[in-house]
């Protein structure tokens, strides 16, 4: 299919990009890796009149540390997130989740910012960001604001981003000494998650002191499995099985051609147990 005609802009500063968005209003769309946006345009599910390509903003690409915080530019590709030693070191969950995305081509074009902004409930990075209590930095005409990942995702494909705002940066607090694991079940190696679980666990002498668990594709947005987390505070590792049974609480998975809601609920429990066991064991 062929997209409807649109204008194309490739700004070189964040300010220019934001200004262009502010001027065009709802008619404009940001283009990052294009791996989610272009299919939408080609199927003519959307027909923006202006595309603002972030490809000319190298300042949005790359990873650095800022004290105890890992800072990732929005235009950092999945392959870079998966492979960068600082990420593997400070936020292995994020690297692991990025490595499960699609195939090589997708990982070399798709971006962290695009993935978060797109807010697909089956997306892997939104879940990782929520599990890690990441903060998202948004730039708009009035300057920058910071939104916690848990508040960023509002509904299916909907975030708190305003049409004239750009996601520029993702800040992930380092969790030294914590174990983590991202576990995903999908129909084929390059398919989106049927269900996935992100588990981050702090242990002390065989006891779990705190845990954070987030679920992919178990509702319109990434779901923090609060009941599981509560059941795991200050308990021995062998309490994981019982705690994982709470993984379905607060979820509202969809039934679609990939799986029924029932099966998703079952899978969430199995994967929560396995992901937590792996996170606690490492």
């Amino acid at each position: 299919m062929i997209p409807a005609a649109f204008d194309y802009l490739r700004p070189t500063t964040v300010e220019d990009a934001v200004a262009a968005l502010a001027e065009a209003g709802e008619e404009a769309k940001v283009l990052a890796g294009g791996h989610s946006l272009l299919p939408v345009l080609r199927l003519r599910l959307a027909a923006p009149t202006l595309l603002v390509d972030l490809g000319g903003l190298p300042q949005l690409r790359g990873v650095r540390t800022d004290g105890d915080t890992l800072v990732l530019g929005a235009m950092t590709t999945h392959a870079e997130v998966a492979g960068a030693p600082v990420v593997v070191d400070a936020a292995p969950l994020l690297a692991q989740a990025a490595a499960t995305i699609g195939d090589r081509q997708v990982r070399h074009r798709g971006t962290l910012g695009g993935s978060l902004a797109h807010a697909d409930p089956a997306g892997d990075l939104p879940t990782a960001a929520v599990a890690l209590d990441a903060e998202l930095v948004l730039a708009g005409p009035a300057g920058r604001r910071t939104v916690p990942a848990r508040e960023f995702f509002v509904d299916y494909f909907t975030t708190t981003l305003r049409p004239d705002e750009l996601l520029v940066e993702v800040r992930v607090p380092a969790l030294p000494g914590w174990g983590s694991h991202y576990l995903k079940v999908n129909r084929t190696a390059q398919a989106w998650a049927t269900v996935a679980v992100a588990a981050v666990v702090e242990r002390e002498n065989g006891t779990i002191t705190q845990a954070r668990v987030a679920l992919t594709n178990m509702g319109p947005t990434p779901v923090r499995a609060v009941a599981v987390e509560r059941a795991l505070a200050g308990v021995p590792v062998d309490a994981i099985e019982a705690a994982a049974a709470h993984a379905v609480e607060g979820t509202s998975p969809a039934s679609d051609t990939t799986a029924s809601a029932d099966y998703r609920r079952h899978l969430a429990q199995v994967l929560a147990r396995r992901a937590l066991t792996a996170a606690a064991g490492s």
Partner: protein
Amino acid sequence: MTATLAGTAAEPEVGRARLRKEDARLVTGRTRWTENITVPGMLHLAILRSPHAHARISRVDTSAALREPNVIAAFSGADVAETQGTMACAWPVTEDIVLPIYRPLAVDEVRHVGEPVAVVVARDRASATDALEAIEVDYEPLPVVLGLESALADGAPLVHADAGTNKCYTWVLDSGEAGTGKAVGEAAAAAELTIHRRYVQQRLVPASMEPRSVLVDPTGDEWTIYSATQIPHILRFLLAATTGTPEHKIRVIAPDVGGGFGGKLAVTPEEWIAFAAANRVGKPVKYTESRSESMVSAHHGRDMIQDITLYARRDGTVTGLSVKLLANMGAYLGIVTPGVPILGAFMYNAIYKFPAYRFECTGVFTTTTKTDAYRGAGRPEATYAIERIMDELAAELDLDPLEVRRRNWIRHDEFPFTTVAGLEYDSGNYEAATEKAMQLFGYDTLRAEQAKRRVAGDPVQLGIGVSTYTEMCGLAPSRILGALRYGAGGWESASVRLLPTGKVEVVTGTSPHGQGHVTSWSQIVADQLGVAFDDVEVLHGDTRTSHKGLDTYGSRSLAVGGIALVLACQKVREKARTIAAHLLECAPDDLEFADGAFRVRGTPTSAKTIGECALAVFAAHDLPDGVEPQLDAEATFDPQTFSFPHGTHLCAVDVDTETGAATIRKYVCVDDVGTVVNPLIVEGQVHGGVAQGIAQALYEEAVFDEDGNLVTGSLADYTVPSSADLPEIVSDRTETPATSNPLGVKGVGEAGTIASTPAVVNAIVDALRPSGVTDVPMPCTPERVWRALQTARSGQEVAA
């Protein structure tokens, strides 16, 4: 002069693992595909398709589209009703079959989502696509017809109202009536054991890498048609026959074609529409479908419900087999739609000596995309059902699945063997292939591991799946096709011409679209004529150079076209012998063709190569009296019987009983495809075939919602597995030459697809059998495996 030749007796070309001559251009894409051919003045076509599964078209208004930028023409089916011709079905399997009228562009009614309704012709593709949005169509929705059984129920809404029924045909093969065996009724009455199963062959999409594409150039006093097709010759014939265009004014070219798998064994409405459009505007018109269009409108495959009943004695001998099929035709009949299940009719008895057999198939119309050939066409379905139910028999009798097969299969010393379906299998050795496969697989070791894991209650259970298959291919003996009411024959043609420098040009009637004919044909010619592999060029796919042929499908190219090539080479060789004898001043009978040249018996240094003969013929200064100055020949081969490759596929699957995920751990196949021309190509065909069979077992399914919309309409929803999802495939061979052709070859193009699906599903069921699972419907997704386990467990609890 004696040249050194590649194809010498010491090292024949046939049997060598030659890299393919085609690969560099195909792999890099630096070649001619229909989509990248541009001719002067060419316009682009876009097609508006029905969003309804069934509706009356009350109005189409294309006038606004005509005012869009760059638009040259816009029209609907009604505008070309008289001139667009009709789509033909070449296989009316019974006398009373319902053959609905099938218009390329719908005229007054649409019968599936995606059916073409109107078109725009514009200067560029984007403008044509944009202008589609300006076409107005009023539809009056009609009731949809989706289920096979509900379509046949009394009072069901009709797909074709004037037919008065949704039944397309019922076709029966009864060994008692045909005299090829006993009556199944007797077997049923005497059976010690009766096993009945219902299997569903889900609908699949052929999904070749290159979508369909066509360019019609009406320039000059003729029509040149480029098409991404498997069947340029049949396209030419049918276009002439259904539009009244003189056949000799039509030239069809299939340039390099990026896969077909049966999906391009089709003449398509889109080809006819592009032809009508080019005639209307008097300019070349190109149409290339998008993937979304391809998924919904190119024909689908499979989609059958199989009721199969096996009658047996308690010693494991099968005494009779009865098969009842419902086959989904979709809304219309493509060229071989009704015949696809019939190709399976002869294969349910498979490699076994069943004494009684009855097969009945009813074709059913529904308001869905039409079905037609997909890799294996009828034979994978048959093989699946019989190989699944043989496992059920083994389970019932507590026998190893291979042992049950052994007790029923045709032994190697019983060939040639006439089956209960009336076919004569020329050769085979099921024992040898099975033995070799078991060795490579480590069958006994894996069975021991399975037993251990069962006892330990391991959440990941091991399953072992078996499939001992045969198939009929090499389509086909013309007289048998005639007896089955197929519209054409099954011969193939080849011609060979020697150039003055000793190079060879071969023209083949086969139409490769990824199979590597250029390479295999070069190997055959090298041996036959004593020329170098690199000195052979193979021309195909252009009806102007290859004026005669029946194209490529049904694993026929080598087993039929390859034999025509051998016969043509032999004719050339005999012509050359006369010339060599003249040059060497001896009698033709004094010469033997050895080590790539004609040699005087007893004086082997006195020799002439074919190349030297070719030069002498070119000069024509000194030819024997009455000998024409040419060294060319043509031959046509019509096989006397089908080709029957066979083999044993073994599959080990780890089934995670908590998630339901089935992971193939080991896959071993030993195929017997007779003499092998190129082992690398054979292995490639087996690998690709196995991959597609695994895809049916585990991944793929075309699903319609209750309104008849294809919900798996993109490659994101229709999960084609990639290399990352597939196991290492250990492929080996036994070689029992076919006795029905001079090369001893059998077909290999479909074997892997036919064999692998039941091997995988048998393995999954085997893993779960202790839990009471006896079937998992395809595709065996994690959820379906999990559900089968849940159901079986609750059943066991209820029983206990």
